[in-house]
């Protein structure tokens, strides 16, 4: 065998280099992400065109969520004006600007300072307090105490002489319960075991109504029982000033960023540059990756393994036994000097002659019969294999 002559092999056609210049290649690489991004942007813009954002929050007059009160505010606006105040100053201004027939609704009053509460209480206007804090209660309706609590929204009946409550009837006013001092001019409605859910105190020229919960006013509960009627009766006026104070702002101060020394702050610029260099240093490859067509890696015994899996999953004992017996016969027949197409009788007779076994037993072992005892279960199959192995050992 002579070593092959070192002739240059024939050129192989370009198999992996994509056609076109670098621009075409770059375009091909980015066009799919570009199309996807554009499609996403268009969809996002289209979706945002139809959407209107509503503020969220408990008893928020603009909120359409279940705990908002936009529905009630819309109803009130049919008969009069609703002026939403976000601070006590705004509320006082609105009350001052309004006419005679005005109702001030105070919700979330824990966000107000004690002096603001006092200022509001001094206004000469009908006031509805929704679940007031203890401070607010003492400012607006001294002599009224929180004496109990039942589940929010529990239905109660008026059982009092207050026209607004009587007209509304049963309403879901369960919440905090109040009891007035015995000597005060207070009317308690919706009584429960430990107090009244709604108390109206009449002062000099104006009334203060305390409602133990804002639940009947919300969008979710407004349509239930007499809730809407009660709310409209309490708030029915030409001008409603709806006070829902915003949370107090944390006073200014300087941010973390401002507190850093100037040098550190300015070092962000070179830091970005240094990180960019780092990325370039580590990320820059020495030339493109080299592609290569790989051959398939499949075992030649794959189909045999597949057959084995099928036999196993179906517990195909009959076929397995048949294959084992056939293998035994094909290996045994040449040793016994028999032709491959020898009759079962001839094979059994030849084997019996060499091993001295019983004909009938051998026939069952080597050929099986109609009621094959070796395919009943897996253990029988093992016995069959053992029997065949034993037999071929003795024939050796």
């Amino acid at each position, binding site marked *: 065998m002579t070593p092959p002559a070192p002739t240059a*092999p024939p050129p192989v056609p370009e198999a992996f280099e994509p056609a076109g210049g670098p621009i075409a290649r770059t375009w091909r690489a980015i066009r799919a992400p570009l199309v996807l991004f554009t499609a996403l942007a268009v969809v996002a813009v289209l979706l945002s065109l139809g959407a209107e954002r509503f503020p969220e929050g408990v008893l928020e007059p603009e909120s359409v969520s279940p705990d908002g009160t936009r529905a009630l505010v819309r109803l009130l606006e049919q008969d009069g004006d609703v002026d939403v105040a976000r601070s006590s100053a705004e509320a006082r201004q609105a009350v001052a600007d309004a006419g005679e027939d005005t109702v001030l609704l105070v919700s979330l009053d824990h966000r107000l300072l004690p002096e603001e509460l006092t200022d509001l209480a001094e206004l000469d206007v009908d006031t509805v307090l929704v679940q007031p804090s203890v401070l607010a209660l003492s400012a607006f309706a001294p002599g009224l105490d929180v004496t109990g609590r039942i589940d929010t929204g529990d239905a109660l009946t008026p059982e009092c002489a207050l026209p607004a409550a009587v007209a509304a009837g049963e309403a879901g006013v369960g919440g905090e319960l109040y009891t007035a001092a015995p000597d005060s001019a207070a009317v308690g409605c919706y009584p429960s075991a430990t107090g009244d859910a709604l108390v109206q105190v009449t002062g000099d020229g104006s009334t203060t109504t305390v409602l133990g919960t804002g639940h009947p006013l919300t969008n979710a509960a407004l349509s239930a029982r007499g809730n809407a009627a009660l709310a409209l009766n309490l708030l029915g006026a030409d001008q409603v000033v709806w006070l829902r104070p915003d949370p107090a702002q944390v006073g200014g101060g300087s941010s973390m960023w401002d507190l850093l020394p100037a040098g550190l702050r300015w070092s962000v610029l070179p830091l970005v540059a240094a990180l960019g260099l780092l990325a*370039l240093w580590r990320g820059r490859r020495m030339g*493109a990756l*080299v592609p290569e067509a790989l051959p*398939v890696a499949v075992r030649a*015994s794959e189909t045999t393994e597949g057959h084995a899996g099928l036999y196993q999953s179906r517990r195909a004992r009959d076929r397995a036994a048949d*294959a084992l017996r056939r*293998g035994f016969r094909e290996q045994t027949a040449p040793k016994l000097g028999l032709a491959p197409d020898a009759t079962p009788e001839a094979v059994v007779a030849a084997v019996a002659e060499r091993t001295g076994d019983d004909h009938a037993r051998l026939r069952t072992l080597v050929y099986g019969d109609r009621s094959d005892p070796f395919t009943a279960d897996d253990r029988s199959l*093992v016995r069959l294999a053992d029997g065949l192995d034993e037999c071929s050992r003795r024939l050796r």
Partner: protein
Amino acid sequence: MAVTGRAVLAGFLAVAAVAISGAVGAWASVVALGVLVVLVAADVLLAASPRALRLAREGDVTLRLGDSATLHLTLANPTRRPLRGWVRDAWPPSADAGPRVPVQVPAGERRRITTTLTPTRRGDARAAGVTVRSIGPMGLAGRQRTLSAEWTVRTLPPFHSRRHLPGKLSRLRELEGQHTAMVRGQGSEFDSLRDYVPGDDVRSIDWRATARGDGVVVRTWRPERDRRILIVLDTGRTSAGRVGDTPRLDHSMDAALLLAALAGKAGDRVDFLAYDRRTRAQVRASGKGSQVSRIVEAMAPLEAELVESDPAGMVSTVLGTQGRARRLVVLLTDLNAAALEEGLLPKLPALTSRHMVMVAAVADPAVGAMAAERASADALYRAAAAERTLSERRRVTAELRRMGVEVVDADPEHIAPALADAYINLKAQGRL
């Protein structure tokens, strides 16, 4: 453009400098950035241009699988600046070309770098390009360019069965009567007359010639020479399956090469054909001498195709293009019952009527091991499936033998010598 770790270090030093600069931070930041940009830009501009580099290659073109090829790449730097940096000679992953190497080429000089390829796969490997990264004098940044330096290295089949060649050749010489043991040749073709030497078979004494001369003269015999052999390699889907860790195709190639080498020495003419649905490679014997190097060369780029072979096309190719003389057709394929019964068996009579046909197949030892599994009931199902496969193989073998075809069925270790033995036996029997 490429930067080095030194540039990154400089960047982070700039960060530290600005961070401790205090009140003049804004100025310090701008100055640091400016200095960084100027230094990097200067280094890029001052680096020797990799584009101007001249490349030249020399070295091995072919090698056997398992050996290493050494290639030399000469970098000539015609610029007036010294080139300092890195070079990566890129090859397909299976060529195992090694990582990048540092280089220094002074201005106007040349340097040589050596690439050692140790391919793990047969076939052609093409150089993918030489990437040169030229770093500037400060070592901060540089320029990078991928240059083209075309070269192809062909990895030939390993021919492991070469080690069997001496033994088989001595068997062949035994046939020819040239063996040192002075065993009479068993050939059937008359060769020459020579003087009787004690130990020669008295039956071979030529009495007529003896009567003419002084001494006793014997006839010598030699096996037939100048017979034609066609080795057909099936490259269809059945050749893709791996026996051990190597595709069946490669085992078949090994056996075919031993046969070709042996037949060449025996004075027969060997043709080669690789076929699945069309001719993949073909070598026709031209004149005397060994065809092995040409066959090896033709085998190198062959890969198993994932298509069903077309035996009808193969038979007509064998009958059509290879002349009308009787020859030995050795078909290296798999004894796959389904594929053979559907395809080859009906077409065989056309072939056997004109030629002597031998089918050689690589058996899978894994199937034999499966057939012997007895550990549990699940193992028995595997054993049964393996017995089924073996049984089908036996059936196809019997079928082929009935049609007058010689069948060689052996595991990868023994297929090459078994095929050689079968060939020698045919030669001894004068059946070629």
